[in-house]
């Protein structure tokens, strides 16, 4: 059994399932006990709060804090000091090689989500609610607890870039294995390998109708949906220089690749031979004539090799370097990144033939990145995860079945305290329920789509600050102790030190004046998380 989230080993998944079924013979109480020990071991493995924390005294966001906020999901208490010790470049280098980072604590928590370790074919054994639930919670837990922070940030980035909406037809059954075998397998690898894996992914073939792309005597016209998005969204960009003819020719090249969706008795009897949910090439659906994609002649008779040819052609196109670099800079530098940064990043992408590590190294070491502190509006997922990390929150992975509970919310509506709503339920009103963006362009990297939901951000901050989010334990007292807050500290000192801890800079005069009036410490922490400063990074 693999405990490594980046590995793809599917051959062991069925044995894992048998094991799990055996374990189910145990009681619910046993599982709860198991979960408690996960949190305990998590703390043993460095997920606790150091005895002393020294927030920055700078009026500008600390550059180390900035890197941790952008290349990851914000510092876990103590992480800032670690970067200060090793240096930003060393931290970045370590993050670019996630396999060198021991991530046992996060892996231990992720072990809970058994549907994510399954072959696609076995995913049909799960109810849709469970699949949706586990995929979402897994993403949250990895982002909060993984020490491979840049890796997780890139998983989110590619997840948007190669968006698959869970709610379309069979995608919900196929997305978990896509997350593992496409996104996580190649998040920091070669761009071309990522796109190739995605092109053959059962989830992508389903989401963008590739599995129905057949060229036969009866239906001689290919389904262009995937070919179009491959060029428009995945590689070259909408004005990348391809024509309608190129899309058509590419679609012909891709015809014949499909997904086996048949339910077979043999699969049920022998899961080791399960075929359902696997991609295969059906040669009678393939257009085997000559084609011309972006000026590259493709000889007749290429068969299944045509797909790889198309992927190679579009990935190597100069527009692709520009388009991907533009997107990376928009995600990690600013919503409107300086052209100089995009050019630099694109040059490295081209030089290394799409080596994601090298490209990111240039991006995060650029002057433009360093100068863009506090300019990005955190998307909801980043907002929630960075809040949890700032507070060293202990999040349980096991609250399966406790789904959205707006009914409970309503029951408590007249009370003055925040209602108890499960953690991932906040992602929905905030507009980013994960894996559910309805169009193939992914959740947007802009400000306007996210600005209408401040109400729910504040509600989350209040609930988290007060410890009202079920299954999330915040660590107020040890955090305050580590920050040197004592009973006799002045309100002004408390406000200043907590603000600097969460935001990475000292509060400005207006911010300090507003916050020092807050007497209750839980309110204070919540209001810092609700502040405009914390909405940005």
């Amino acid at each position, binding site marked *: 059994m693999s405990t490594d989230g980046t590995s793809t080993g599917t051959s062991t998944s069925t044995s894992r399932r048998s094991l799990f079924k055996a374990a189910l013979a145990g009681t619910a109480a046993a599982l709860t006990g198991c979960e408690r020990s996960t949190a305990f071991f998590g703390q043993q493995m460095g997920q606790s709060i150091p005895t002393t924390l020294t927030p920055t005294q700078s009026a500008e966001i600390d550059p180390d804090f900035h890197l941790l906020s952008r290349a990851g999901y914000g510092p876990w208490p103590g992480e800032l000091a670690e970067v200060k010790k090793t240096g930003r470049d060393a931290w970045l280098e370590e993050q670019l090689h996630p396999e060198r980072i021991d991530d046992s604590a996060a892996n231990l928590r992720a072990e809970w989500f058994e549907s994510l370790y399954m072959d696609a074919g076995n995913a049909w054994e799960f109810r849709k609610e469970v699949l949706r639930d586990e995929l979402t919670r897994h993403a949250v837990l990895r982002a909060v607890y993984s020490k491979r922070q840049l890796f997780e940030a890139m998983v989110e980035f590619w997840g948007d870039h190669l968006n698959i909406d869970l709610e379309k037809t069979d995608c919900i059954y196929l997305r978990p294995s896509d997350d593992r075998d496409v996104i996580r397998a190649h998040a920091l690898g070669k761009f071309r390998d990522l796109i190739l894996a995605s092109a053959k992914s059962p989830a992508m073939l389903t989401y963008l*109708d590739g599995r129905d792309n057949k060229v036969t005597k009866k239906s001689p016209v290919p389904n262009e949906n995937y070919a179009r998005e491959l060029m428009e969204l995945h590689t070259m960009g909408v004005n990348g220089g391809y024509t309608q003819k190129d899309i058509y020719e590419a679609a012909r090249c891709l015809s014949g690749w499909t997904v086996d969706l048949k339910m077979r008795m043999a699969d049920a009897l022998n899961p080791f031979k399960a075929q359902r949910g696997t991609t295969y090439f059906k040669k009678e659906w393939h257009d085997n004539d000559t084609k011309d994609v972006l000026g590259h002649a493709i000889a007749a008779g290429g068969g299944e090799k045509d797909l790889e040819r198309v992927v190679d052609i579009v990935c190597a196109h100069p527009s692709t370097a520009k388009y991907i670099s533009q997107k990376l800079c928009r995600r990690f530098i600013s919503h409107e990144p300086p052209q100089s940064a995009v050019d630099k990043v694109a040059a490295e992408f081209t030089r290394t033939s799409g080596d994601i590590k090298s490209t990111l190294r240039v991006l995060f070491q650029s002057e433009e990145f360093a100068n863009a502190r506090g300019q990005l509006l955190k998307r909801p997922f980043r907002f929630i995860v960075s809040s949890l990390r700032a507070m060293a929150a202990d999040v349980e992975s096991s609250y399966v079945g406790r789904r959205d509970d707006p009914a409970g919310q*309503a029951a408590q509506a*007249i*009370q003055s*305290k925040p209602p108890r709503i499960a953690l991932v339920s906040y992602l929905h009103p905030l*507009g980013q329920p994960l894996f559910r963006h*309805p169009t193939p362009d992914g959740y947007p990297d802009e400000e306007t789509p996210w600005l209408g939901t401040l109400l729910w951000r504040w509600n989350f901050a*209040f609930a988290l*600050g007060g410890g009202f989010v079920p299954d999330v334990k915040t660590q107020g007292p040890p955090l305050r102790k580590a920050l040197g807050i004592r009973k006799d500290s002045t309100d002004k000192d408390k406000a200043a030190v907590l603000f600097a801890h969460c935001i990475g800079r000292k509060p400005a005069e207006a911010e300090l004046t507003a916050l020092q009036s807050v007497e209750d410490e*839980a309110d204070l922490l919540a209001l810092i998380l609700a502040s405009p400063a914390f909405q940005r990074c």
Partner: protein
Amino acid sequence: MSSFTRRALLSKLAVAAAPAVEDAGRHTLIVVFLRGGADTMNLVVPYADDSYYKARPTIAIKAPTGDADKSRAVRLDDRYAFHPALRPLHEKFSEGRLAIVQAVGTDNTTGSHFECQDQMEHGDSMAASAAGGGWLGRYLRTRANTKLGPLSAVALGTALPESLRGAPVASVMQSLEEIAIRTPSGKPDAAAAVLAAMYGADVTMLGTQGRETLDLFKRVSALQEGGYKPANDAKYPKDSFGNGMREIARLIKAHVGLEVACIDVGGWDTHFFQGTTDSFQAERARVLAEGLAAFDADLKDQRGSFTVMVTTEFGRRIYENASLGTDHGRGFALMTLSNRIQGGRILGKWPCVVENESPAGPGGMQIQHDYRSVFAEVLRGSLGLDAAAASAVFPKCEFGKVGLVA
């Protein structure tokens, strides 16, 4: 902080805050979804057709006689009459504010509740590939260049309906009381003051949005004080539909920028003992009619500000089955209540025209209007959807003329 100082503080915030979402002339579309495939043939009864009575020897609704006999249908015109439980809506029809379209439906012939609801909420056709997200979500995205606030789209209930998926902003709530600042210590006013100071000092769009959100809290909180008293003695039934319609009325009156509201009435899957003027369907019809009537009475002075559209996923067979119910059919009658719709009319094909060819079997009402054409006209009448936007909301739809709007 006492409630007096709380008000004082909130009025101070109001002065500080920029005006919230532009609300002048704002119109709200309320989509009521009858889940389970409503037998609209017993709601809008084709009493002039003998074949209706032949097909339904037990469960047909008796033709109107003109008096208030509760066992008889309520006359709408020479051909149609309302189920007696829909009597509260009769006046709206006579006033020319309620329109009915017969023979509406999807091209989905599976007879699956799930598939048909899904297709309808996504605004899709079986023939074309999925457009992505919900139809109301897409509508709101066509509006994305104009400002949407946190309460521009609201679903009353416990889950976001698929129709709103992909909306830039959509909230789910059961009650307006959920719109509140609730801090760990239970001191919301102090928290609001801190937020006002911090967002007030932020000169970016984020700061503006923060101030507008605080203004929203203020206006909603004014509504929350002392509970809600509907106008014109409107009496909302004490069921989830009545409660939901009451909350929608409050949101409209609060001028929070509500454009789209979604609400469900379930329980229309009447395979068994459907009943006539009592029993299951009659009870559902009463819930629907009383809730709508109370809402219309409550907003009597703002009748230009809303449009209600009542839809279901499919209608039922014309023939009653052996257990005195009706099985899944095809076409259904859609109702809409609005000052912006040409009401007082029943549009569309005579319902007893049966679709024999359909895999759904004999007895389903033949469909005349693709539901998307009807939805698009309702959007045009209510929220002023133009032709270009209609194609964005329902891509690849060849819109037919329905006649709800001029």
